[in-house]
């Protein structure tokens, strides 16, 4: 099994954003995540890959405590962001989620206008003092999500009226608007066509300048294209975690090798 300290020592210690130690996740009696420890680097893209049902989403959702919303879900172990234990009693998950944004598998814009979609986060967190500031935040977020030019003339039309790829970029803009430090993405391209996927991938490429991006993907090509670090999950275990190059060219675990060569999954 994967040995945390030796792997971690290979990484640049100064730039670690998230540290997970011996994380266990249970859904009722199902042990979905088994003793996972991992260090996630700031300002880089980390990809989680693995066959479906291996716990990638579950682990991702631990990082912003979205699992709290599932009654039967129980998380053990320790996850620290910037050295603070996010499962500490004093931590308010709502505050955490403003700091750790999330983009979901299926584009899920609110059935409101494009503007309101992006403005919602800043509004509820009281990030702006007036309309002008809010406008600016919305514009910045939409530019950041490479959507501004396409929607600037129809900011007040429904977000649900956009194409799938545009909707997903709108969701990214919405997540970016709250100025998070970490951006979690759960298979953000799985519902998109190749062109939209390419656009979102370009976007992720630029997002890593500011955020620590963690992306779950079922496409190994995608992981290889956009990520610097890759974690391979299998049946709830973190089998291997290393530089993306190493994982794809010289994996140390036979299971990783079988997966990336297409024999399991």
């Amino acid at each position, binding site marked *: 099994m994967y040995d945390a300290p030796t792997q971690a020592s290979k990484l640049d210690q100064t730039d670690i954003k998230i540290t997970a130690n011996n994380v266990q996740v249970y859904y009722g009696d199902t042990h979905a995540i088994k003793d996972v420890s991992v260090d996630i680097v700031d300002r880089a893209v980390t990809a989680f890959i693995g066959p479906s049902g291996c716990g990638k989403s579950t682990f991702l959702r631990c990082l912003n405590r*979205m699992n709290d919303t599932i009654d039967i879900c129980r998380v053990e172990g320790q996850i620290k962001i910037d050295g603070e234990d996010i499962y500490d009693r004093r931590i308010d998950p709502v*505050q*955490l*989620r403003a700091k750790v944004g999330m983009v*979901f598998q299926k584009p899920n814009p*609110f059935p409101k206008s494009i503007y309101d979609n992006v403005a919602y*986060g800043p509004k509820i967190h009281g990030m702006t003092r007036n309309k002008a500031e809010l406008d600016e935040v919305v514009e910045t977020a939409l530019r950041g999500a490479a959507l501004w030019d396409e929607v600037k003339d129809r900011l007040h039309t429904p977000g649900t009226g956009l194409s799938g790829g545009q909707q997903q970029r709108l969701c990214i803009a919405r997540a970016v608007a709250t100025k998070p430090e970490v951006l979690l993405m759960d298979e953000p391209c799985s519902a998109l066509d190749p062109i939209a996927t390419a656009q979102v991938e370009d976007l992720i490429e630029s997002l890593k300048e500011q955020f620590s991006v963690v992306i779950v993907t079922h496409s190994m090509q995608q992981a290889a294209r956009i990520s610097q670090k890759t974690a391979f999950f299998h049946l709830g275990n973190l089998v291997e975690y290393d530089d993306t190059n190493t994982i794809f060219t010289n994996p140390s675990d036979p299971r990783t090798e079988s997966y990336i060569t297409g024999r399991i999954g």
Partner: protein
Amino acid sequence: MTDATHEGAKRHRSLLTVDAQTKKRNAAEARFKVYGMVAILAGLTFLVVLAVSIIRSGLPAFSANMVQVELTLSQEQYAEAEGQLFKTRAYADIFNAAFTAELRERGLTTEFDPESIERIIGQPGATIRSFYRANEDQLGQPVTFNLPTASRIDGYFKGRLLRENVTDSRFLTLADLDLADELKEAGIIQSQFNWTFITGKDSSVDNPGGAGLGASVIGSFAMMLVVLFLSLPIGVAASIYLEEFAPKNRITDLIEVNISNLAAVPSIVFGILGLAVFIQFAHLPQSAPLVGGLVLTLMTLPTIIISTRASLKSVPPSIRDAALGVGASKMQAVFHHVLPLAMPGILTGTIIGLAQALGETAPLLLIGMVGFVAREYPDGLVSAFMDPNSAMPAQIYTWAARSDDAFYEKAWGGIIILLVFLLAMNLLAILLRRRFERRW
């Protein structure tokens, strides 16, 4: 099946010939379509029969045969009548004398005696007296009175009473019918739209002509306000809590099962509960719309909770995730995003629940609204809720229970008005739903 195994041998199966399997399947499909159409046809037939019979029996209630008479009452006559012991009798006598004189003057051919007039027009004394007491300045001037005919005469013109069935009695003689026919021909008796039926109050048993549904419409309206303002907030709050916040455990399961069961409890049970709790224990006034509203609230709550929970459930979870994902609290997620999306469903459920409550009769029976004769309009807001009143279905029931055929006709008419209200509410539900759903 067999075709598959012989695929090699029969490579060029023609699509133009239908094989046995397909034939059987098509026949089954055709049969099923016929069953379906028969079922729908049967349903439609019942509906049409129902609608036709309601309209046929109820429409006559919306017209009334009225007598238009011009009367001039002098100051002296007024003073004299007011001085007597039987005042309405005195007014009736004055009226009869004037009317008889007018008919004689018009040269009516049929012979008649003053009592016939009374049997045709009923007893207008009270109406005339209350008019002059309210408008003393009209004394000495000609006033046109629009008076309802006696219920038998009205029934005769509407075909409720047939000439063959009339035997001379102290209530009606064949000669009266001749006279009535002549009055009708002369235009003195006219069929008019019966506003009194819609706006009026209930009348005593011997005066069906003056009975109206108006007072009980007010009663029903007051009850519906109580139901709306109690069951909507309570029901929606309970649903939101159960659906979005409550942990899923034994207790919430139990609550859930009980709510579903509550929706199936016969309404008379709520009635007796209301009697025991609101009237006998809390000492709220009997027959009051407030109590009716409270009882109907109990009845409507499960309906609203069930439909609200269903519409909350139908909001995709991805919307909640999206809101939580940008750092909204659970409450913000629910109130900013889930509730607005569930609103059309909630409103529809509420209106359907209200419509159900509007037509509910059994619980009103037990709290004394059925059988109460709503002789007066409520005189103010408090009175509308606290003073005894009837309600539409209760009034209909009361009328149907009276022996006079004229009241039976009113019961049918009342059903039409009730149905119009119900249809309007359902229409509103549909419109609201469309409107909200079209927003995006």
